């Protein structure tokens, strides 16, 4: 069996940044496994600009941004396998037999491609960087026919920007997520008529700048609190019906608007793609659907890290790169530490992992604490999102192991004006920062300093919430 120190699943922005960082932190034997025929992931089809302002202090297109990292991957001679699909991740069985990693737990990654067929890699650590996918029509249960002409916004984006074909001429878009907004502009520029963008919620799920630059600049109406209630056309879409919805999202009678169109694009949310994480037994956060990670971006399975949109959906690729660099660094630390102190014996590791898997599914929040308490005596502080804060990434931090500062990112559950983001440790307020406006479309962050946690009492938790004053 092939051996590696670090396997990175996904060669998009997250995977590439993680690989580069891991190499820069001293890891030699790295393999990136990418399912597409090029590196870069979804950036390859994002030909609009606006990428890289934070990372490179300049405005790049998606492919340009990806190329910067691809060049680094190549300069650092990091191995990558294209058109390679990972089919399974599991704990290695014969850990003692591993000569590369004597006495250290290892992970088996199974994959398939046209060159090697079905193959396995034995590795010390894995970084999950599979990204996310779009919510399909079925999940929305939109009634009507099922003709040609219904696309997710991302599929339409690929058809136009990568393949050079137009998915339609007269378009209605459901959902005001960023891809939907970008595609409203893109299709208009390519000569299509975008009749309307409908959004179920009373607010847009996209960034304000995209609403201005992609809709308002082109006079495309944004209909908030509207949804699709019918799709007409037996072969190709011939029309769709929108209706206004009440506060529970139920269509209101008498508010139907008919549109003659040949295309319906769906931009109704992105879902972290975690089928592999599930087969591996990684504990997932209920709200995000992504792995629950600690401040080192490590999942409930030791040696398995996660970063980018597989963790939670980011607004900006710059944040993905930043997060992924950290994941690469922490994976490198883990691998080096494992080299120095191969402490655990295989059976114990396996038992522990089995416990993680089952327990974590029911109570992901508790899992980290028990795990660390049992193994290293380290305290792991849970971060509890409350009062409008939907989730946080990471969802726990370790005051001992944490870096001098840790960025905690989250989204809020509604539109809030003039609120304070507050962070508490027990009863003690650590941070209190005013925001003029908070919306679900924009990811928020707070920075937790190591110095906050000099004296921590047992069972204390960190709480992040929104306060009016």
């Amino acid at each position, binding site marked *: 069996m092939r051996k590696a120190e670090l396997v990175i699943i996904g060669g998009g922005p997250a995977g590439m940044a993680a690989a580069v960082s891991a190499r820069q932190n001293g890891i030699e034997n790295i393999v990136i496994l990418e399912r597409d025929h090029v590196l870069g992931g979804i950036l390859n089809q994002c030909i609009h600009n606006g990428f890289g302002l934070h990372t490179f202090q300049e405005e790049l297109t998606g492919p340009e941004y990806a190329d910067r990292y691809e060049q680094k991957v190549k300069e650092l001679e990091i191995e990558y396998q294209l058109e390679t699909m990972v089919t399974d991740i599991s704990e290695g069985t014969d850990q003692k037999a591993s000569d590369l990693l004597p006495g250290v737990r290892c992970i088996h990654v199974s994959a398939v491609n046209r060159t090697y067929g*079905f193959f396995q890699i034995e590795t010390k650590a894995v970084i999950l960087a599979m990204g996310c996918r779009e919510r399909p029509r079925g999940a929305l249960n939109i009634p009507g026919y099922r003709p040609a002409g219904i696309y997710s916004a991302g599929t339409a984006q690929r*058809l136009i920007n990568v393949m050079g074909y137009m998915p339609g001429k007269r378009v209605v878009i459901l959902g005001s997520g960023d891809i939907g907004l970008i595609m409203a502009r893109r299709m208009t520029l390519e000569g299509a008529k975008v009749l309307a963008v409908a959004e179920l919620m009373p607010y847009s799920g996209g960034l304000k700048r995209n609403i201005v630059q992609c809709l308002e600049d082109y006079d495309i109406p944004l209909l908030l609190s509207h949804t699709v209630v019918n799709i007409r056309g037996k072969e190709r879409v011939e029309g769709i019906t929108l209706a206004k919805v009440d506060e529970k999202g139920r269509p209101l009678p008498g508010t139907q608007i008919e549109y003659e169109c040949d295309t319906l694009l769906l931009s109704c949310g992105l879902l972290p793609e975690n089928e592999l994480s599930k087969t591996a037994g990684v504990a997932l956060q209920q709200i995000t659907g992504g792995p629950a990670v600690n401040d080192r971006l490590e999942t409930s399975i030791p040696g398995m890290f996660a970063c980018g949109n597989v963790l939670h959906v980011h607004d900006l690729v710059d944040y993905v790169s930043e997060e992924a660099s950290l994941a690469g660094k922490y994976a490198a630390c883990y691998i080096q530490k494992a080299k120095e102190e191969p402490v655990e014996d295989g059976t114990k590791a396996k038992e522990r992992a089995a416990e993680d898997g089952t327990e974590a599914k029911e109570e992901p929040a508790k899992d980290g604490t028990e795990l660390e308490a049992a193994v290293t005596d380290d305290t792991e502080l849970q971060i509890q999102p409350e009062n409008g804060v939907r989730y946080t990434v990471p969802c726990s931090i370790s005051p001992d192991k944490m870096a001098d500062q840790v960025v905690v990112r989250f989204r809020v559950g509604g539109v809030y004006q003039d609120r304070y983001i507050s962070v508490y440790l027990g009863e003690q307020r650590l941070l209190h920062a005013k925001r003029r406006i908070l919306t679900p479309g924009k990811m928020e962050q707070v920075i937790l300093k190591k110095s906050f946690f000099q004296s921590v009492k047992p069972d204390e938790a960190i709480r992040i919430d929104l306060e009016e004053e």
Partner: protein
Amino acid sequence: MFDTVIIGAGVTGAAVARELSRYQLKVCVLEREEDVCCGTSKANSAIIHAGFDAKPGTWKAKLNVAGNRLMDQWSRELDFPFVRNGSMVVCTDAGKMERLEALYQQGLANQVPGLEIITDKKRLREMEPNLSDQTAAVLWAPTGGIVCPFLYNIAAAENAAKNGVEFRFRSEVTGIIKKEWGYEIATKEGLITTRTVVNAAGLYADVLHNMVSERKLQITPRRGSYCLLDKTAGTHVNSTIFMLPGEYGKGVLVTPTVHGNLLMGPTAVDVKDKEAINTTAEELAEVLEKSSMAVKDIPKRQVITSFAGLRAHEVGRDFVLGEAEDAKGFWDCAGIESPGLSASAAIGCLMAGWVADSLHAKKKEHFHSKRRGIVHPFELPEEQRQELVSQNPAYGVIVCRCEMVTEGEIREAIRRPLGARSLDGIKRRTRAGMGRCQAGFCSPRVMELLAEELGIELTQVTKSGGKSMLVYSDAAQVHLPEANLKWADVLNEG
């Protein structure tokens, strides 16, 4: 001139074709669509019923039980997935026990094997942990099963083709005229002559029948809507769970599918339009609501798609099978609604026997009873799949991530006889696009493969034939006067 023309390439037509191909006959199947399995056969519960539902003595009762019995052999010979997962009728009201008992007695009269009424709560919990807490008793039918209706239909048709049956697609029948020697059939592609006709036209079987017979049939489309759940929900139940028929009508069923999803439905709404396969908000809500009556805690957020199909309900309520009384040589398979899928193999045998006898046909010396399906590498033992990829590397490239469908499978689906011609054709043969992302990732690549294999432009690739084109060549084809005007203005000003 053909000996027999079968109209319709759904499960009934395909099963008749397969069985008729045992004989020394010149047989042709006419299909309106560009593929087999495009009507009622593609949108149903995918259930092989045990056979207790129909009144004893009816065709439905006899052929359901007979068809069910044939499925093991057919799935083996034709290589399509079929599982006897058993079925349960759940009675949640102790006051309605006599209805369950009546169903049991009916099943006995229909000679359904292994029927049992189970009241032991502990045993029921072991069999089905997610049955409603109100469950008083169930009727257990171990012979109930689930099948992939697409692969079954495709397999039977491919096997018929292998045995010499000719298939003509996009050949909608527009008229049938009785002649002394047989029938003249007008299609959009021209005239076809034949000694006998088998009418397996599903929802349109009445229209065709009424072209040659004065004893009119009347088929009402009865729509059923379904919700399909992700594979993560696929083990929520083990067997097919029915509600006790009663005040809520026949109710909706909850069943695993052979591919590991969970399926819920159908509704039953009579509609006028024979093409009205649209879902409605009311019907989808009904499916979601009623599914909970017999099964608890269904993870309804896992719905990945919804669809509707039309049952061909004949006014006489039973299957209409046999030679039309006033049109010799015109054989009807009409009103094939539930349990039509379950009965189809038996209908195929019965009808083929009748037609062959009427033509005094002899059996062929060499009939190929076996057909092999498309190889899915993930179902092979490790060594074999490694061998497959080394011989054909396309089997090492995953195109559909959700269902792990390889490029090799998709190419094979297009290349084999009666191959796929559209995205939906690929989907039904390989499951590419049938998973949780519902073709979001794979459809552009599948479109490219279709264009490449068929030697057509991407703009000619369709979702399901006809005018269901997916893309236009470029923006130039998208002609918008106002957009052009704006550019002209800009240029003039410049």
